[in-house]
């Protein structure tokens, strides 16, 4: 009998696809349902952030940083502000530091809520996504209260904040935190312990610590592989050394350490830890203090260069800034965590099915705005 002619099929997943989290294109080489090679094609959302930054004054770059990782704009702004402040040696008032931490951690919760919800969506569960967005709305309400914007804030400025939080903000944040713990239990009930969900996520796309480190994976995806690296703990920046919080690590509760389920669950746990940090920060928040007092008149960092990294919800967000003493940076390079995290997809996604590739991609939690910049 003559052999049937069989060949691999190249499947273009994206740039228009419901589950690529934006305009990502994955070139899949498929043998039936099995994917033998994944090639991410990026650049569909390229907006020349770095080139823009070379032509803008330092304070003008801040809004652009938020537009990179649009799900964690506070985190990006925080990182950038701290990098320039470190170059200029600005000492911040206590109140600014505390408020910044509160906003960064609120943003972490909001970002992880999107990650958790869309991961559920990727494996076919629609309702948890809506639940997650319900809580995210509350956080966005808090952001709107403080900055007037819900997605891109331009709130954390170099040397301070755009303005102080309005009266009632602290009480409302406490209210949110009180309600939030119950809500996390709800997600666990509807998604985390679901048998089908475990079948879909556990043991899928296992990322060993070696692979993770070789590819420069950072953030929750790295910690899910059992590597205890969190910049908030290893090199505390801002005032993170004052708070008591745990670093959740992947333990392979449902399968292997570093599988998609672990990457999902680490984020769920991290939301609780962030809530803990916010609570402590609110308790210690100084009542007095002008949030604008340290904002410099002219932002001209001394000649030199700096690489400053901070823990964004997606991982290590680094800013490499070269200054020649003028008010415009000579070069600004952003080390975006999602870019490195995405690069690992071929390594851990090979040999799995199309559905699993979607699940693995969802568990890596990428934001295309940050990958393409």
């Amino acid at each position, binding site marked *: 009998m003559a052999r049937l002619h069989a060949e691999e099929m190249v499947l273009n997943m994206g740039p228009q696809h*419901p589950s690529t989290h934006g305009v990502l294109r994955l070139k899949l080489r498929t043998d039936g349902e099995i994917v033998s090679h994944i090639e991410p094609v990026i650049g569909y959302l390229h907006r020349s952030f770095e080139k823009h930054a070379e032509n803008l004054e330092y304070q003008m770059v801040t809004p652009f940083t938020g537009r990179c990782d649009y799900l964690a704009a506070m985190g990006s702004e925080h990182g950038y502000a701290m990098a320039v402040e470190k170059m200029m040696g600005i000492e911040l008032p206590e109140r600014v530091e505390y408020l910044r931490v509160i906003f960064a951690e609120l943003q972490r919760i909001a970002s992880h809520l999107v990650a958790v919800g869309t991961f559920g969506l990727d494996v076919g569960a629609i309702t948890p996504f809506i639940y997650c967005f319900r809580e995210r709305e509350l956080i966005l309400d808090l952001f709107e209260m403080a900055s007037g914007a819900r997605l891109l804030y331009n709130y954390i400025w170099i040397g301070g904040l755009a303005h102080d939080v309005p009266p009632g903000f602290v009480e409302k944040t406490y209210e949110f935190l009180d309600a939030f713990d119950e809500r996390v239990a709800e997600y666990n009930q509807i998604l985390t312990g679901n048998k089908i*969900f475990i079948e879909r996520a556990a043991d899928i796309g296992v990322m060993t610590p070696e692979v993770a480190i070789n590819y420069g994976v950072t953030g929750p995806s790295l910690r899910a592989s059992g590597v205890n690296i969190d910049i908030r703990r290893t090199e505390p920046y801002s005032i993170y050394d004052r708070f008591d919080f745990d670093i959740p690590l992947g333990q392979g509760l449902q399968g292997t350490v570093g599988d998609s389920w672990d990457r999902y669950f680490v984020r769920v746990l991290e939301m609780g830890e962030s809530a803990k940090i916010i609570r402590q920060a609110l308790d210690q928040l100084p009542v007095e203090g002008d949030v604008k007092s340290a904002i410099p008149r002219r932002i001209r960092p001394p000649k030199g260069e700096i690489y400053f990294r901070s823990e964004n919800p997606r991982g290590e967000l680094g800013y490499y800034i070269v200054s020649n003493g003028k008010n415009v940076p000579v070069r600004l390079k952003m080390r975006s965590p999602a870019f490195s995290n995405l690069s690992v997809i071929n390594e851990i996604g090979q040999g799995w*099915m199309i559905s699993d590739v979607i699940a693995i991609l969802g568990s890596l939690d990428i934001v295309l705005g940050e990958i393409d910049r």
Partner: protein
Amino acid sequence: MIQLLANWILSFDVLSGIGFSVAWGLSLFIVAALIFAFVAVNAIVLVYIERKVSAFMQVRLGPMRVGKFGTLQTVADALKLLQKEDIIPLLADKVLFVVGPWVILIASVATFAAIPFSDTLLAADMNVGLFYIVSISSIVVLGIVMAGWASNNKWSLYGAMRSAAQMISYEIPVGITLIAVVAVVGSLNLQAIIQEQAGTGNLFHWIPIPLPNWFIFHSPFLFIAAFVYLIGATAEINRTPFDIPESESELVAGFMTEFSGLRWALFFLSEYANATLVALLVSIVFLGGWQSPFADYEGAQIGFSVITLVAIMWTLFVRAKTGRLSVYPLGLSLILTMAVWLFPGFAIWMASPGIFWMLIKAGSIIFMLMWFRWTFPRLRVDQLMYVSWKVILPLSLINLMGVAVWMWLTGEIQF
């Protein structure tokens, strides 16, 4: 029903001259139109209900703007779909592309011909009704493969291949589960199956809990079979958690990717027709069809009182667990119980068979299917196959044997 309709047409003086065969043909068309109208209206209502149910589960309001409480939303959507441009991709296989959706729709509507809605309300009283339904509904997969292949799109192809694999492998356990019931009745006629379930009796023949004589309470094996059938049927109609042929987060829209407008609406229509069919079939085969759950007027009174007791306990339980007070189940059962005790006529009506019971039972099953859809994630292709071949199929075979042994033990059959 066609016979009755033909006689009724001939009973008019004006029409009596047309002859019996013409009247017969006319009745055929009328019945077919009625069935199609039922399927279409049913789909529109179900889409609205599904949106409201999903909104309820997701803490939303759902459609609220078009009509009172958004009741006309699906009508508006249907009108929009009718107006849309009819696009056939340039490189598509045009004949198959056009025919595919119709094959699916015709197959799923044709099955309704054998569904008995009450003791008189059915289009065709076939002695192989169950066999007819199972065989006609399996034509659907042909249409899906046609549509998927004709689209000349990789996503559609994946959807179609998945669908073919899924529906064919789930037909086998589903069929065997139904055979277990057929073994009990000794007939493939759906009316005979329903009539066999009249009255009340003991749970599993021996346990002295008075329950309706439905096949779900016939024996432990048929009890399991009912759930096996429900799972298998959910897979057969491509609903979550088995919606992998159209899995929107993976395959964009599966075999429907290239379809739009009216052609897409046909898929949608047949999807809801299939869901309704499965719900109706579950209620016919396992839940007594149009039979009332109460044997007589006193049975209805006692039955509703028990339901109220359960509702009170449920309300207290929910109150203790979550601190919320859910009044609707309790209020509804209280009102019904009072009505049953105060108005004997109502109690008699509740104890009599009819289309009402059929729709109530099928409605509950459809609600369950919606519940599945809005709470479960989706299985993967190989997991789906695993469930079918390694879990459900052996289970249904064991059930078939178990039912036979059970009937021998209870003396329903002798060798």
